[in-house]
């Protein structure tokens, strides 16, 4: 069996769906963050796949590295926000943090 672009994209799409599923369905803010990581990494797979099979070449690789860096920074900030949310609401359940409604 020869591995083609489609396989990569399928893996990436699956990974993206899992990520979205986690972000939407999970109540715990940490798991939501983990879902975001999944989504970012599915994007990375897409970049790399198009770098290999498309005409992105090295730009795809560079974008993936950027995304990794961005994800690290994002994780740091997001965890800090979660920490603050916990301090304020004494929970990390996103359903209970609905002050945006007001």
């Amino acid at each position, binding site marked *: 069996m020869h591995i083609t672009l489609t396989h990569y994209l399928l893996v990436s799409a699956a990974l993206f769906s899992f990520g*979205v599923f986690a*972000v*939407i*369905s999970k109540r715990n803010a940490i798991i*939501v963050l983990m879902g975001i990581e999944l989504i970012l990494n599915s994007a990375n797979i897409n970049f790399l796949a198009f770098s290999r099979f498309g005409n992105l070449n090295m730009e795809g690789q560079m974008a993936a590295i950027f995304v990794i860096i961005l994800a690290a920074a994002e994780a740091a900030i997001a965890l800090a926000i979660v920490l603050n949310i916990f301090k304020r609401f004494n929970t990390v359940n*996103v*359903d209970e*943090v*609905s*002050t*945006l*409604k*007001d």
Partner: protein
Amino acid sequence: MHSLLTLSLAILLLPLFSFVLLIFFGKKFYEKSGHVGTAILGIDFLLTFYVAIQKLTDTTNEVFSYSFTWVDFHSTIPLKLDLGIMLDNVGAVMLMVVLLVSFLVHLFSLGYMKGDVRYSKYYAYLGIFTFSMLGIVLTNNFFLMYMFWELVGLSSYLLIGHWYEKKSAADAGKKAFITNRVGDFGFFIGIMILWFNYSSLSFDHIYSSIAHGILPFGSSGWLTAAGIFIFCGAVGKSAQFPLHVWLPDAMEGPTPVSALIHAATMVAAGVYLVVRTFPMLTADALMIIAYIGAVTAFISATIAIAQYDIKKILAYSTISQLGYMVMGLGVGSYSAGFMHLVTHAAFKAGLFLASGSIIHAMHHALHHVNDHHTDAQDIRFMGGLRKKMPITFWTMIVFTLAISGVPLTSGFLSKDAILAGTLAYNHFTGQTLIPLIGFFVAGLTAFYMFRMIFIVFFGEHHDAHRLEHVHESPRTMTIPLITFAAVSFFAFYSFNPFSAGDGWFFQKTAVPESVVPQAVRAASAEAFGEELHHQHYLAMGLSLTMAALGILTAMLFYYWKKFSADKVVAAVPRLFTFLNNKWYFDELYQKTAVNGTIGIAKLLAWFDAKIIDGIVNGAAWLTRLVAVISGKFDHIVVDGIVNFTAYFTGFFGLVFRRIQTGKVQTYIIFALVGAMVLFYVYR
């Protein structure tokens, strides 16, 4: 200004001073206000006496005049108003008459009006009445003439209505004023015609313009019209037909006021106006004036026969004598007409004061016997007063002889001269009716005056007890009577008892030269005087016959009682009722003028109430309707849109608030779904 003119000004202003003093400080003087007024008038009378003597003994017959320009519009309106006074012989005589009568009336009123409710006001009004009449006498222009004319109207209104608690007195005041206004309206039109054409209202300017051939609107017809319109004023004030109706009612005023009105101040004004405007009257105007005078003399003399109220008899005799004066002036007997004004002033003032004296005594007597129903003025309740009131009786006899035109009296001189004038007029114009009426009325006058004398003073009094309480009046009342009786003597006017023509009066008040064009001029003064001489003996003979016939008839009826007046009345009941009701003039005017005015007023009131108010109310109703519609529009449409917007917004809010869960995950779902939709749309 000549010194006599300065004195005349003082004479004019003194009664005004009396008025001001008494109207403002009357309460202080109260009991004494009569004496104050009388004293001022006494001084005024002495001044007048001096001025008149000086003026009339001056052989040059110069006319003193002083005027100053009060208003001058220069170019904007060609109107220049010169105010001024003048003193000529006619004016000097008139001053004398006015102040003699006014002073004696003041004196008489001291007794007559004693204890009156508005004693000081009464004297104040007498003052302004005298002042306004003096103004008419002394003015030298139509402007001041008209002003004082209206002042006379005002003061007559105040005095006739002196006892205004009595409705009849208040009504009489109003009637006099309103009737006079009718005449004054004509007077005003006449003045306007002259002003429009001559841009000035002074006598001198107007007369000299006419003499230079400048006629109003360039036609002699307009000159006649102007003369007749101005004469309308005289018709009102001098109670000429058809405006004579106010004068008998004016008897409602105090009797001394009647004397003043009838002799010196009010009715004389009209005749004086004709005297003043005499130079500008055309032959046609003079003829109309003569006829008005004749008709007035006739109508009122016939009415006087059938009256029982002593003051009504005198009132109608006044109208009749005024008719004589106006007729005299109309036919061209200028001096005679004016002289009759003067002689009549004396004996008519005397007659009124004598009647006042009688009424005063009757009131007194009726009061004593506790009779409050009998009319103190009705001659039927009098009778036999001769012995009780000798001074009143004898003076009244003198006055009655004078008014009847019996020789040796002043009345004979003037009346005879007028009648001779009517004959001369007949000779020149062929108007036979005028002398016929003149002589007939002379007989009637003698008859009704002696009828009154016989009924009042002779015969028996009905109630002997009442007669005992009749007394002669106090001295303040008898002195004026004696004075008037004295000046009713011929010697004051002419030393020839049978002809006024040679006396000083005729010399001093010669006919002024007519200024109207030759074509419309009446017979010249010379020709008229010539004819007068021819007619003199005929006139004298006829007038004496008529007077004698009148007196004889009165004696037959009321002294010897050979005939019964009641039988005559019974024989012609219709005629008697007609005369007794004064030819139904009042009723006629009530039906036409008064009811007509009221009718028009009602029509206008209806117009106001229905049409004008209807328009106003309609406009209000329309405004309300528009307001209601506009309100409904606001309420339904405008408010509806606003409310609908609000409701709509609220509805959308309700729908969309459901989306706003505040849950991050929901928003993400929406974002994803939205992205998918976009992908699907733009694939």
